[in-house]
């Protein structure tokens, strides 16, 4: 069995588990409360052009003709750009299936067809309304189920011809652009041996991230080879590479700057509007061009989320032991595939849920559909499969007349178990069973104050999550001691509300054994001079960037000791770094102050001993490999995080209105860097996913047009849905060897098991079983009167 820690070296010695100093507040808080923090749309430049985009009204259509004659008559229009202006620019993140503007056909409603540039946005709008486009509408396919049928239209006629960065196992001549296969053990045998086979299909519709800040980017080409961009992106370096590729120029010619993001959640990772912004700006050299989406466009013209149908066939014994499972996962991935290739994979890796299943057959398909492209969203494939898996466990228990906790505990992964990828689970992966028992106990303890006309239910789910990323997704950091003894640190990772930079400051203070005030973390990122970071996704920043910071610290301390050695004439190995000073191990009265040597030591006669301490730290996940294309087995995930979640709900029998009373999570975080921020991440994730559980769903009309692209009819949780609810977060701390001070990623995990917890709670309350999200008031009510235990 592969050992995932094979070549991992944990920073030993100086950095044992320590208490992490707690910041009084996030470093960005003052600015954000007073409205001074700058977001992308707060930036503008003299003479900047506004870009307004004409978008396809059709989900699937040929473009027959575009007539710009009238639009070009509008005074003050700088330029109008259409797909005809594209030469060979392709947006190729993983699959080269995407152009910055539609050329001869549109594949989703909202796809860019033309862009008007003007200094005056009202003039641009006038021109936009005068552009005439003739379309020949085609039949659209709106979900994977339709898109895999025999006689379906093809979203991409020639997907064979696309360039691919990796083997996606696509099915030529179909809409399937990605097929991840997992084969483990002998499934047929397991099914033969089973006492019962339980099969269900679970639906998780497409959603929207709805970051409160819509996407935006500003670009300017300074020469025809060089561009600078400001963007609301989680992935400045990734944007840089993608744009450089698109124009076939060197990465170094492109500068991408990112400041604060008004929420990301995955929807501002990879690329979304940045390639289009770069493309249109190229037509007006030396001018800044701003493209900012309005709310409607943020819904239907950036990235959307989720969209999966999961079929599980589970072979079980009478006692509830899972012998084997066949899973088919169909992702409605939208019109372009790159941004969801790895979601399909991650879901495949995790469809077992946190259970040991010896015999597995998983087929996870990414399928083209005529919707906006699906991209990463907090949880990344895991909420989709947990919705299925944790409902399935509940239903297995019900079917076998067993207690669902016993069924879970019987099958749960524990040290020594082999997971779906063939990796061995170890103690250090975290205390799954402890987390689960904690939630179970907490739920049992809650006494409900029951009201007439209402029914009550409790639901639970166990979770597992692993990041999926390229095997070479690096992070890095720079560290610089200033003359006065303060430290400037820059590291990869965009600040989008998760508190990354504050956590890094704490990690640095702990590692350097210096007070927090002495450390300054640089917040803005510029690809010109900030340390490289692949993307800020996958809940990986704290441990990856954190490890890079630790690496830089380790090197800095070494350097400091070298300076001290020169000055004290004591061998480096005989010196101990204590933060403010470096002390002789033999005699604690012999020491130098760090601030006296951090820039080299300047003696009275002007002579300098040593060198300024400035270091660069990096982190590269170790030992990751691609999975085997036929079996899906391999060392694909660098860490696993386990936990459990629960909800308590009240349902109004007359209306189906569901009220949240309690929501909770226990998670093995490895090491909590900041309890307050960690709690905020978990709660934020749980509430976001509660939207997916109860109300959120993108709805399309007959012709594939998105019908609820505004907050009027796309309902996300509001303050009042939470005001009276009690929320709990319990942290377990089993150190993760590869994380800084043992920390694991936790930013997405709050989302993973919330939907099944709600589904199971509804089952508990009413005896009805739900298979399709969202669990709207309407669905609950109609199902309740159709087949519930109630006499309504």
């Amino acid at each position: 069995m592969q050992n995932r820690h094979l070549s991992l070296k944990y920073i030993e010695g100086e950095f044992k588990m320590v208490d992490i100093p707690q910041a009084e507040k996030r470093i960005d808080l003052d600015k954000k409360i007073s409205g001074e923090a700058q977001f992308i749309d707060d930036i503008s430049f003299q003479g900047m052009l506004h870009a307004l985009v004409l978008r396809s009204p059709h989900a699937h259509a040929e473009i027959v003709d575009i007539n710009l004659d009238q639009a070009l008559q509008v005074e003050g229009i700088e330029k109008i750009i259409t797909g005809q202006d594209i030469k060979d620019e392709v947006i190729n993140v993983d699959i080269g299936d995407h152009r910055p503007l539609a050329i001869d056909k549109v594949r989703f409603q909202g796809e860019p067809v033309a862009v008007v540039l003007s200094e005056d946005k009202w003039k641009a709008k006038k021109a936009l309304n005068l552009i005439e486009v003739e379309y020949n509408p085609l039949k659209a396919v709106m979900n994977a189920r339709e898109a895999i049928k025999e006689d379906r239209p093809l979203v991409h006629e020639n997907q064979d011809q696309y360039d691919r960065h990796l083997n996606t196992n696509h099915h030529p001549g179909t809409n399937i652009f990605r097929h991840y296969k997992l084969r483990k053990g002998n499934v047929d045998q397991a099914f033969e041996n089973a006492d019962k086979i339980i099969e269900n299909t679970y639906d998780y519709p497409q959603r929207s991230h709805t970051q409160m800040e819509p996407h935006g980017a500003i670009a300017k080409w300074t020469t025809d080879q060089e561009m600078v961009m400001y963007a609301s992106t989680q992935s400045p370096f990734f944007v840089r590479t993608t744009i450089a590729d698109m124009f076939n120029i060197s990465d170094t010619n492109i500068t991408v700057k990112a400041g604060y993001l008004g929420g990301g959640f995955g929807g501002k990772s990879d690329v979304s509007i940045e390639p289009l912004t770069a493309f249109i700006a190229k037509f007006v050299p030396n001018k800044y061009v701003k493209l900012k989406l309005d709310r409607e466009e943020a819904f239907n013209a950036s990235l959307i989320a989720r969209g999966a149908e999961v079929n599980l066939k589970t072979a079980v014994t009478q006692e509830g032991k899972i012998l084997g499972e066949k899973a088919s996962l169909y992702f409605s991935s939208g019109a372009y595939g790159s941004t969801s290739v790895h979601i399909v994979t991650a879901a495949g890796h995790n469809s077992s849920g946190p259970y040991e299943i010896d015999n597995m057959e998983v087929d996870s398909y990414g399928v083209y559909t005529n919707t906006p492209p699906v991209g990463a969203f907090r949880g990344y494939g895991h909420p989709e499969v947990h919705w299925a898996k944790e409902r399935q466990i509940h239903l297995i228990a019900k079917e076998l007349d067993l207690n669902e906790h016993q069924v879970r505990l019987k099958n749960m992964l524990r040290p020594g178990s082999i997971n779906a990828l063939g990796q061995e689970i170890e103690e250090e992966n975290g205390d799954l069973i402890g987390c689960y028992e904690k939630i179970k106990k907490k739920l049992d303890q809650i006494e409900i104050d029951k009201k007439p006309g209402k029914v009550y239910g409790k639901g639970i789910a166990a979770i597992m999550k692993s990041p999926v990323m390229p095997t070479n997704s690096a992070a890095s950091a720079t560290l610089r001691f200033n003359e006065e003894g303060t430290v400037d640190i820059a590291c990869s990772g965009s600040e989008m509300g998760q508190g990354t930079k504050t956590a890094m400051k704490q990690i640095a203070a702990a590692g350097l054994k210096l007070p927090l005030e002495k450390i300054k973390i640089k917040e803005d990122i510029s690809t010109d001079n900030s340390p490289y970071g692949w993307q800020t996704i996958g809940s990986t920043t704290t441990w990856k960037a954190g490890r890079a910071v630790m690496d830089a610290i380790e090197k800095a301390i070494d350097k400091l000791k070298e300076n001290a050695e020169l000055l004290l004439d004591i061998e480096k190995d005989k010196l101990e770094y204590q933060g403010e000073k470096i002390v002789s191990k033999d005699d604690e009265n012999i020491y130098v102050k760090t601030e006296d040597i951090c820039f080299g030591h300047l003696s009275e006669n002007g002579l300098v001993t040593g060198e300024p301490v400035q270091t660069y730290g990096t982190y590269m996940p170790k030992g990751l490999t691609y999975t085997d294309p036929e079996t899906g087995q391999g060392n694909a995930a660098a860490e696993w995080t386990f936990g459990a979640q629960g909800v308590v709900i009240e349902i109004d029998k007359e209306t189906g209105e569901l009220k949240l009373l309690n929501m909770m999570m226990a998670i093995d975080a490895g090491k909590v860097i900041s309890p307050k921020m960690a709690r905020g991440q978990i709660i934020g994730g749980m509430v976001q996913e509660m939207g997916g559980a109860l109300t959120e769903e993108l709805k399309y009309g007959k012709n594939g047009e998105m019908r609820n692209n505004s907050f009027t009819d796309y309902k996300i949780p509001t303050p009042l849905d939470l005001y009276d609810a009690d929320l709990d977060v319990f942290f377990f701390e089993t150190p993760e060897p590869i994380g800084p001070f043992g920390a694991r990623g936790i930013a997405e995990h709050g989302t993973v098991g919330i939907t099944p917890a709600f589904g199971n709670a509804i089952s508990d309350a009413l005896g009805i079983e739900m298979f399709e999200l969202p669990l709207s008031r309407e669905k609950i009510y109609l199902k309740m009167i159709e087949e519930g235990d109630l006499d309504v």
Partner: protein
Amino acid sequence: MFSPFEYKRPETIEEVFELLNQNDNSQIVAGGTDLLVKLREAESSPDFLIDIKELDELKGIEQENNEIKIGALTTITEIKENKLIKDKLYALYQAASEFGCYEIRNRATIGGNVVHASPGAEYGVPLFALEAEVEVVGQNGIKRLPIEEFWYDVGRVKLDNELLKSIIINIDKNEKSSYHRLSRVEGMDLAVVNTALVKRSDNKYRSYFGTVARTPYQNKKIDAILSKENFNKKSFKKIQDIINESVSPRSSSLRASPEYKKRMVVSLLKKCLRDIGELGDDIDG
């Protein structure tokens, strides 16, 4: 972003009519919470916006003899905070409490709500149930007509270069009233369905249901059942049957299916009855 238009804020009603006569493609704006949202995405917009917020004649809540008169420009917040309304026309207070959110209520007017005439408007069912009348002012003076005549279709009211001046409700006729709505989330949302119930001084009931038809829907048979004493489980079964047979809500609604809407108006009716004190918490009535 709005397409360009001209803007005027006249101080007298006469000025409004002058402006209306001078400009073919003009629009009245009160709180703007419907109109501006509509203009934002529209490809074209009126050439002229006439902001009537300064017209004092259209403001205020007053009682004259047995009538309460609510000026068209009265904001929802003003309705919610008015003691007279809370005491005498409880359904209108309840509707104000459910309406949008605090900031919207500070701007939205009852007149705009009525003129916009959307099927689930907060002030549809309660005003219909209360047999409200509207005062309309035109160049030839003021006329008064029942609300169900004024508000005759989705988004359609009887106004012809005229302004809605006020809404008038007889408080002697209406003894008790209640309003309930169902939404999708607890915070700001529009009504998925809504129901208003009035118990009149002659002990007769009037009930209206919203979003199940093009305008607030009343069924005399239901009111007859309600007006008979002693309703029980069977009465609601009957009411449900009547609803099922008589309305067919739009199946393309994003907010709810016809089936759910039909059920919910009856559920909300039960809540209204409970408010009025005619039904205990026992779900079956």
